[in-house]
């Protein structure tokens, strides 16, 4: 197992290096850079920016160098100093920007994920056991509905409904008075209130998928002879259900957890924009739009790393969960 893992990790390194090159290249691809973007933004606000101003700014930020030079400087700083560069937009080191949003991002993502798994797995089991029952149709229909509605539209509609019914569109994650307040019970409640729409919007689609997978897996597992064996042994139906099919059906779901690693951090960018959530997704989107390249680059690199690691974790998890593979490694 260890050897396998090590081998996989070693393979990750060239992949990540390659990705970092692509990432950097792609960020550079759209015409214009941070300076032209900045100049355009400030022109809108009525400020005068001359070509000299822009050239000077470029020179300061090192944007006048060739792309490959910028790349090597960036990578060198990462490797040598652990310095991921500087965010032009925030006037802060990239890591500080990422850190600023990490807490709430994780909160939103983990709550959403917990919601997804806690809701989807029981419903998936239920729908499989009671296949073709009214409940099955109801939950399947509901989850399909969640999946079929584009997130951004659902978010806007829920926000508007919340405004018309409760007079509060529940924008952001906190009401204005709590944004900078110390943590307190009231702030927690306020946060919980503001989490409802994101959890529904982001969670529902994922839930739909999970329910489908869980239901399908359960249906497969319920038809396996080992269930009959267990029954012939005299086990109660409940015990059978949880010990055999559920356990087996959870395997693929647990192992896909690695795949969703990236979504923990990005969340649903579009939804977050619509709902004004102060999380990483929109920050990175804006970094891309504004060509805040080290921020965007670091983030994309991070995401790429997570994707690769997620695949690795999934593979290892899958191997670990499958006794067949696990024991093979034990033997060697």
């Amino acid at each position, binding site marked *: 197992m260890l050897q396998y893992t090590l081998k996989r990790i070693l*393979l990750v390194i*060239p*992949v990540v290096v*390659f*990705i970092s090159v*692509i*990432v950097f290249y*792609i*960020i550079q*691809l*759209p*015409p214009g850079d941070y300076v032209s973007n900045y100049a355009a933004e400030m022109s809108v606000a009525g400020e005068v920016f001359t070509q000299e101003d822009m050239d000077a700014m470029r020179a300061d930020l090192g944007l006048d160098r060739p792309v490959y030079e910028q790349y090597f400087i960036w990578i060198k700083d990462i490797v040598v100093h652990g310095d991921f560069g500087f965010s032009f937009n925030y006037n802060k080191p990239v890591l500080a920007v990422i850190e600023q949003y990490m807490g709430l991002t994780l909160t939103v993502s983990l709550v959403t994920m917990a919601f997804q798994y806690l809701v989807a797995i029981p419903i998936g089991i239920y729908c499989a*056991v009671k*296949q073709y029952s009214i409940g099955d149709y109801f939950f399947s*229909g509901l989850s*399909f*509905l969640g*999946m*079929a*509605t*584009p*997130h*951004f*539209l659902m978010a*806007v*509609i829920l926000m*508007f409904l919340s405004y018309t019914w409760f007079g509060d569109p529940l924008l952001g994650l906190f009401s204005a008075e709590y944004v900078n307040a110390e943590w307190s019970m009231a702030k927690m409640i306020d946060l919980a209130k503001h989490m409802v729409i994101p959890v529904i919007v982001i969670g529902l689609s994922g839930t739909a998928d999970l329910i489908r997978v869980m239901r*399908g897996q359960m*249906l*497969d597992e*319920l*038809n396996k*002879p080992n*269930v*009959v064996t267990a*029954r012939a042994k005299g086990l109660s*139906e*409940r015990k*059978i*259900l949880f010990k055999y099919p559920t356990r087996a059906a959870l395997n693929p779901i647990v192992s896909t957890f690695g795949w969703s690693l990236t979504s923990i951090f990005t969340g649903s960018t*579009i939804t977050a924009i*619509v709902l004004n959530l102060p999380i990483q997704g929109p920050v990175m*989107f804006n970094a*891309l*739009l504004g060509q805040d390249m080290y921020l*965007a680059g670091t983030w*994309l690199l991070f*995401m*790429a*790393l*997570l*994707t*690769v690691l997620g*695949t690795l974790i999934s593979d290892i998890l899958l191997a670990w969960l499958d006794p067949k593979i696990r024991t093979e490694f034990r033997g060697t």
Partner: protein
Amino acid sequence: MKLLPVFGKSTVVKPAGSNDVNYSSQWRLMYLRFKKHKLARVSLFVLALLYMGALFAQFLAPYGLQNYDSKYVNAPPMKLRFVDAEGKFHIRPFVYELKSARDPETMRKIFTSDTEKRYPLQFFVKGESYKFLGLVPATTRLIGVEVPGRIFLLGTDALGRDLLSRILLGSQVSLSIPLVGVGISFVLGLIIGGVSGYFGGWLDSVIQRIIEIIRSFPTLPLWMALSAAIPPRIPVVRMYIYIVIIFAFIEWTGLARVVRGKFISLKNEDYVVAAKIAGVGDAKIIVKHLLPGFISYLVVATTLAIPGMILAETAMSFLGLGIRSPATSWGVLLQEAQQIDNIALYPWKIIPLGTVILTVLTFNFLGDGLRDAADPYKR
């Protein structure tokens, strides 16, 4: 609690009707099984209707995509009436003429029905000219009212265009282009996943790493670069097709992984090993022995991927990367609907959401039905 069917291999084959069922081909079994899935059958029917609607959209839509009219900006859906203001019943449904005015305070357009002017619904009326099926020039449209009357069964948009027409004409893009994308990822996923799974070894290792790289590809800046790079002369629909194709070139990885997994598990089956020992060529083994083993799964996976593409189109439109009006897709319509003032003031603009949901649902149900059908033995 009672658990579900438990037929070991030795038990009765669940026959489904005809006497020679034991000897039916896999496809026939699928068909028989599929017929049983009521929801899937209904979905197939609905989808067929939707696609027919798309095919004949120009004929079905009362108006064209550039039928702007400042008089009817943001007009609510008209009621199709049978009983007129005097309580008289008409066998032929009709609409009243819409009178528009502006609220001087809020500048909102206010529409009232002019009960004096009645326009009966007419069939096969002469309207704007179009090309039937894109080939035959025609002017006849299925429904309409006599000029100068107008009929907006689902209301109008901010440019005074008929929403019903836009939904119908938009379905031509929304229902067809995702098929292209899915088709491409299907072929790519099948070939590359198959090669990776069948041959294994270093080839597999390389392909898996490539897949990892593609999966972690930053798509957003890629789209942004593309939209800047694509020359403006290219019609938006064609530009969108390009985007979908590129999308497909990224999306195939998921399918490839599935195919690879299947190949790995199948290639060690006795019958495949037997064929190999017998000296059957790789290509033949793949085509003859491996593919039939799970082609049905692939069909299902493909069916289930289509709604994802349809939804992706709406998201692309949100980011301003998709189709742009006057070319219309459902994504464009939803993107217009999501503006807060539209939801607040002109809620009928959300109607296209209904068709999107309907399509996505029916594709999913169809996929489910196919999945059940593909698996007659519940393997």
